[in-house]
């Protein structure tokens, strides 16, 4: 049996400011090591999103102008995105994508815009300051450390039914106050780690990939395949 993972790149033509596509390329790299095929498709303004058509999704960061346009379109896809998340399918939402999955966010010009409440965090705006620089966090469940780069003006606070992706060891994280970074709800991860969080964190990629596979092929025993994947981190 040839297994495959079908990836939706949500608004990939508008929300891909920080090399977010690196997540898809990295997923394909590891999938190839175990003979799993990865296909990807951009789902943008004029397209319908159907949860059943995909097994994995990436929702990247955008510039303010693009993010505003996406925010207007997002209600059209809201129900299916929530369905996708509630089916335990992995979704990685970076920066702007992370903010828009929450309850609301305040953009750089001070406008308060509704999110789609797929997750319960919310995002305020800090003034005259951005969180820019290298960041390191520790995932408390696995003990693994993740490395990345953050560059955001929004400050995000976690809500019910979600926990942080990790504890900040170095850098700012969600809001610079509570030492949390990112949010986890089911297999959906929101994060300020720029674009290629999966590229720089092989263990994280491996975990996300097998979540997608186990979700799609519940009867298959992945023990051998898991042993085959050699994650690289830097």
């Amino acid at each position: 049996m040839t297994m495959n993972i079908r990836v939706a790149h949500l608004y990939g033509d508008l929300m891909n400011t920080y090399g977010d596509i690196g997540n898809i390329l990295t997923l394909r790299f590891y999938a190839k090591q175990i003979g799993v095929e990865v296909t990807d498709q951009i789902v943008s303004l004029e397209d319908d999103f159907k949860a059943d058509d995909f097994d994995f999704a990436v929702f990247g960061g955008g510039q303010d102008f693009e993010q505003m346009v996406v925010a207007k379109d997002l209600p059209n896809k809201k129900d299916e995105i929530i369905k996708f998340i509630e089916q335990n399918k992995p979704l990685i939402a970076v920066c702007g994508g992370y903010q828009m999955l929450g309850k609301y966010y305040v953009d750089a010009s001070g406008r308060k815009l509704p999110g789609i409440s797929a997750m319960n965090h919310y995002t305020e705006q800090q003034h005259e300051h951005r969180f820019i620089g290298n960041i390191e966090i520790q995932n408390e469940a696995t003990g693994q450390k993740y490395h990345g780069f953050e560059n955001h003006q929004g400050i995000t606070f976690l809500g019910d039914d979600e926990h942080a992706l990790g504890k900040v060891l170095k850098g700012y994280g969600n809001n610079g106050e509570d030492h949390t970074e990112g949010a986890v709800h089911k297999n959906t991860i929101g994060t300020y780690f720029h674009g290629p969080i999966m590229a720089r964190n092989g263990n994280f990629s491996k975990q996300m990939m097998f979540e997608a596979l186990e979700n799609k092929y519940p009867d298959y025993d992945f023990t051998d395949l898991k042993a085959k994947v050699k994650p690289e981190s830097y």
Partner: protein
Amino acid sequence: MTLRSELATLAGRSSYWFLHNFMGGGSSLPGKITTAIDPDVLQEIGKNYEVIIVSGTNGKTLTTALVVQVLKEKYDNIVTNKTGSNMVQGITSTFLEAKRPTKGKKGIAVLEVDEANVKPIVEKIKPKMFVLTNIFRDQLDRYGEIYTTYQKILDGIKLAPDAVVLANGDEPIFHSKELPNPQVYYGFSNEPAKGDMKAAPNTDGILCPVCQHLLHYHYIVYANLGDYFCPNCGFQRPDLRFKVTDVSERTPKDSKFAIDGNQYEIGVGGTYNIYNALAAYAVGREVGIQPDQIRHAFDNNQRLFGRQEEINVEGKDVSIILVKNPVGTNQVIDLLATEPDSFSFVGLLNAEYADGIDTSWIWDGEFERLPAMDIKQFETGGKRYKDITFRLKVAGVPDDKHTIQPDLGQVIEDIKHMPTQKVYILATYTAMMEMRARLMKQGYIKGGK
């Protein structure tokens, strides 16, 4: 000139003279000294010149050099900041080291200006013309988004409403805001305006500024540059006054093309360099220089391409090419695809302030095209060698052809033993500067800049 400006200028000129003759430097310190004594000094010196400002994300240095080359056909003693010091102090230094214009006659100055420095410079000197190349996503940690970058340039243009804005008409953002200035556009018109396509997924700036629909294209030159139109509201590329009408040959070392029906050749590859030449042509034509004079100027351009020079290292033909953002990188990869011979590929990644401290952008480079080329050896290095190494692995570069060498000194040793005559080095800014310094020290590059 006020006494204070007089004094400041004198201090600046003598410090330039001292640094230049005894220390072998002097690109921005004289400007610092002078500006400290009199912040308005630029205003005083600038009064004596007709100024052309070149700004945008990519191609500023080369466009500036080509504009100077073209203007030499008509003017003597053109002042320009050819070392690439493109912020306020560097530009002040440029004027200080220049020969003063003849009394009662205005000099001419062609200045490459950093996007964020257009406004502070126009506050001091009123240019006659702005030349705008493009706005691509570049070093987000320093400048922010493409729209804020363009706004920074606009804030400067607004202070000089009489100056002509000579802009790349293929770049949608340059047609997105109303300006009081006279506007002239240049662009590519070498294909029939018939198709209907969208830009590649990794491209920025593809939303209609009027109605926010996705822009479509009759054809795309590269990235988001081309003959764009909005199928929803009718917004479209403005009329072009100066056009590339044909591209007949492209190699890494040569481009043959026609502008407004006249044939030209430049001794350098890359479609982006044809844009740079087109911009210089447009400036020349605007000030009354004839097409055959411009051809003469381009024929003398061999020494201009400092960022893409060929260096002989123990018999190897080594080219170092600066890369700093996805669009530029993709254009360089496109240039490598025109190389007829087999070659070796070296990728050097640093993440210092001058490189941009975020390396995420490498994931938007089309490195996936490399494995299909006739590349015999790959080497990756620099301080962030792990990032670029993994990027190439993911792109499909086979491990048995790929060596990893963080130490740039050792990279030079390795190059001497690479299996091909030609070696292309793609390097970020500080990696390129360090490689140049090392090659100079070993005598492979002659002194000077």
